[in-house]
């Protein structure tokens, strides 16, 4: 199993940033998600975040909302998320689950952590779990040997950054902008400052997400961050593709472009 630590060590040794790709489980189909994520790994993604589709994704923009809605309509359940993780982990990428808190809370934190670890997952990203409420999840993750990734934002004062970073193992997720997920014309200039403000509070890698969608932007972010996170742009390719084969080709092409970007 590839761990986050080995991923970031390898990237550092190659003097580049790691490439992190996001896709919700069950999108475009249950098997299609594994195929697409595997294609992303083959074309250069080091880490895959599998999104756990949730009915009320209040941090997500229209692209991910659309994909998640289709996934839920396809009947995606937590067992499918675990199967997706299992399938993707086989591709050799470090595989995380990105999830809103309520599905984990309802499923049971310990049970979720145990099942995710058995599926070959290396950790979670929890965008709406604040440090104040994180204790049960930190304990369960530690017990199961899972990494915990939390987000810092441009609005976060230094003391919040310190508090969030202290909850992280694996890496710290720096949200590049104030807003929801989705590719943008340019990556917010605040991202670099946020990474700089985060460094003194952690020895972990700091990865930047939100608004990154092409090779040029990946290269720009890779100049100051340890990892570049891309989600909506991959989903866009799949949504726009006329059939599954061309969707796979399109995500492969984008992963290539981004992988080239993080190496510039």
């Amino acid at each position, binding site marked *: 199993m590839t761990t986050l630590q080995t991923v970031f060590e390898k990237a550092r040794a190659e003097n580049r940033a790691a490439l992190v790709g996001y896709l919700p489980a069950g999108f475009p189909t249950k098997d299609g998600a594994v195929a697409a994520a595997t294609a992303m790994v083959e074309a250069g993604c080091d880490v895959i975040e599998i999104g756990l589709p*949730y*009915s*009320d*994704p*209040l*941090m997500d*923009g229209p692209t991910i*909302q659309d994909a998640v*809605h289709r996934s*839920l309509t396809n009947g995606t*359940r*937590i067992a499918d998320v675990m199967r997706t993780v299992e399938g993707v982990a086989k591709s050799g990428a470090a595989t995380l689950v990105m999830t809103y*808190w*309520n*599905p*984990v*809370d*309802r*499923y049971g934190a310990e049970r979720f952590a145990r099942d995710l670890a058995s599926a070959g997952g290396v950790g979670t990203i929890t*965008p*709406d*779990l*604040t440090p*104040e*409420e994180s204790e049960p999840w930190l304990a369960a993750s530690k017990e199961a040997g899972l990494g915990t990734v*939390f*987000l*810092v*934002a*441009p*609005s*976060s*004062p230094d003391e*919040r950054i310190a508090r*969030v970073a202290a909850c992280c193992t694996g890496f710290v997720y720096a*949200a590049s902008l*104030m*807003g*929801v997920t989705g590719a943008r014309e340019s990556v917010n200039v605040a991202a670099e400052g946020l990474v700089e403000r985060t460094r003194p509070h952690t020895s972990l890698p700091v990865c930047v997400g939100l608004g990154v969608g092409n090779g040029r932007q990946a290269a720009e972010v890779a100049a100051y961050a340890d990892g570049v996170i891309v989600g909506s742009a991959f989903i866009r390719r799949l949504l726009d593709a006329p059939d599954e084969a061309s969707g796979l080709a399109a995500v492969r092409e984008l992963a290539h472009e981004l992988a080239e970007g993080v190496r510039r």
Partner: protein
Amino acid sequence: MTTTEGTPLTSADLAGNGVYGNDPDVLGKFGIFGGRYVPEALIPALDEVAAEYDKARSDLEFLREFDHLLRTYAGRPTTLTEVPRFAEQAGGARILLKREDLTHTGAHKINNVLGQALLTKRLGKTRVIAETGAGQHGVATATAAALMGLECVIYMGAVDCERQALNVARMKLLGATVIPVTNGSQTLKDAINEAFRDWVTNVDHTHYLFGTVAGPHPFPEIVRDFARIIGVEARRQILELTGRLPDAVAAAVGGGSNAIGIFHAFINDKSVQLHGYEAGGRGVETGEHALTLTEGSVGVLHGSRTYVLQDEEGQTIESHSISAGLDYPGVGPEHAWLKDSGRATYHGITDAEAMDAFSLLARTEGIIPAIESSHALAGALKLGRELGPEATILVNLSGRGDKDMGTAMKYFNL
């Protein structure tokens, strides 16, 4: 029918100085409920709102201004109306209505909105956003925004826009932009999601003028405090009128702001039963209801730990109610706490029971209530039969029914 004017309120009545107890802890928790489950990006904004509110609640200048607006603009104090002809159907119990329907804009929502609009100005923000279900909170927010010169954007589920078309027109007339939300169930919960997305994007100049006692801390506390005037007045009025406290207080519960508003002043009066009435929709057995407290389970929705209508994997289940204002699969965390502590009791009222009470109040007393409030009226009818003819029941008539004429025309074939 007898009515009474409440005695004028002092600023101290409005101060959230913990005299009624039951304030949340430092993490915004009522017992295990409440707290904050939101993107980290919003934490500084929530901290800012909480800090400003802490200053405002003990600032006499702020309280005077709020009090002044409530009197001269909202039309407070609202009267208490006894409804003996209606009460004949309630086993002869004495029923008194707290007439929030007589406030400016026609519902209790105006109280919270004026308080938060003042808070917005203190925060130095120029734009307010809000979610709305029935449209009452949207109309109230648009009203306060017009009054105070704030830009206003209202998110409203597309389904609700249709069933509350009149309120959409009112908001537009008041200068607000109404954005129909077409994702998910296209009702209140999705409007809240969309408002949060707007807030995280525009938080530097925007205040999210939250409309109910749900959401992340400090909203449940702030909205409650600004709605508390309802119970403070009613308690004083009923003592003047009847010489004693009521045996029970009844209110409809969607998110729970009107119910908390009237309950709160009675929390320490242990002899007073507190009853909340949720929307039973087409009946609990159909699964088409909004019985969050009575049928839901503990979870996290819209930033707060509370009772939620959810499946076994934590996916929110869409609610149903004939009244848009109660059509919500979550509920304020303080209600969750009042339920679990046993201080308040919650029940379901079906669409049909609510519409019967709606029609009955209109015919017996000449008051057309909001369909939301009709759930409390239907509850009071049952409660009266249980408690007997000696009982006095205070009902929060949280809003008027003008906005519901479309629904009523269809329902009663008018």
